[in-house]
């Protein structure tokens, strides 16, 4: 069964993946560290999301008309894991985008420093 939350979750996942592959191109999906981190994040999502959705006294209540009806682990809607994937992956991609720019400028600065030090050595010689 596809509800509105199911569709929005799939849309968010596709948009985040496309953003990385077509626009950001950080290459994060080709790194083992990303997938290892996502497994760890996924494990803790089971616990934290589980506390929010547990059947005995849920903090968040889902409208059964808008999601698949599939509950996993501690009564979490399956869609929540797609939501988490999109949220965390998007953050990591943007983080890497900004970091790449910073690393690039540091490299440029280092090049300048090296060039300056070589000029100093030359002038001393």
């Amino acid at each position, binding site marked *: 069964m596809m509800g509105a939350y199911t569709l*929005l979750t799939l849309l968010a996942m596709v948009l985040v993946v496309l953003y990385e592959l077509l626009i950001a191109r950080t290459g994060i999906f080709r790194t083992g*560290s990303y997938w*290892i981190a996502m497994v*760890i994040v996924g494990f803790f999502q089971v616990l934290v999301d589980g506390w929010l959705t547990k059947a005995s006294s849920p903090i*968040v*209540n889902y409208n059964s008309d808008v999601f698949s009806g599939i509950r996993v682990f501690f009564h979490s809607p399956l869609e929540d894991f797609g939501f988490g994937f999109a949220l965390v992956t998007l*953050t990591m991609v*943007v*983080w890497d985008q900004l970091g790449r720019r910073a690393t690039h400028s540091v490299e440029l600065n280092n090049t300048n420093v090296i060039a300056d030090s070589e000029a100093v050595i030359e002038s001393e010689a």
Partner: protein
Amino acid sequence: MCSQLIHRSGWNSLIVDQHHDLRGIYNWCVDRYQYLILMGLCILGTLPLELVLGARVYRQPRRLMLTMIVPVCLFAVWDVFAIAWDHWSYTPEFVTGWELPGALPVEELTFFLVIPICGLLTLETVRKLRGR
């Protein structure tokens, strides 16, 4: 004897009332902060990744703040619509009731800050331990 009985029953009802009040006070003090406490535990639990393992996420505050603008804004908008369209709701007992524009509980904004930061700390720690 009669006064003793009255006294005793009075005392009993006082105990019952007190128990009831304590329960009420407990609910007021703890339950309404459940969601926020959970978020606080996530921040505390991941703090060693920065302080002990050297994830270097909080130590790049400008990069972190710029990064967070994207997920916080996008997911807060999604949340506002999801609440308006009745996709999900929050149990009043377990939230503070402090709401931002669009009926967005302050807890949700906290969630969109805390969870991605935990993700970044995890990623950077894994990278550091694997030597990038």
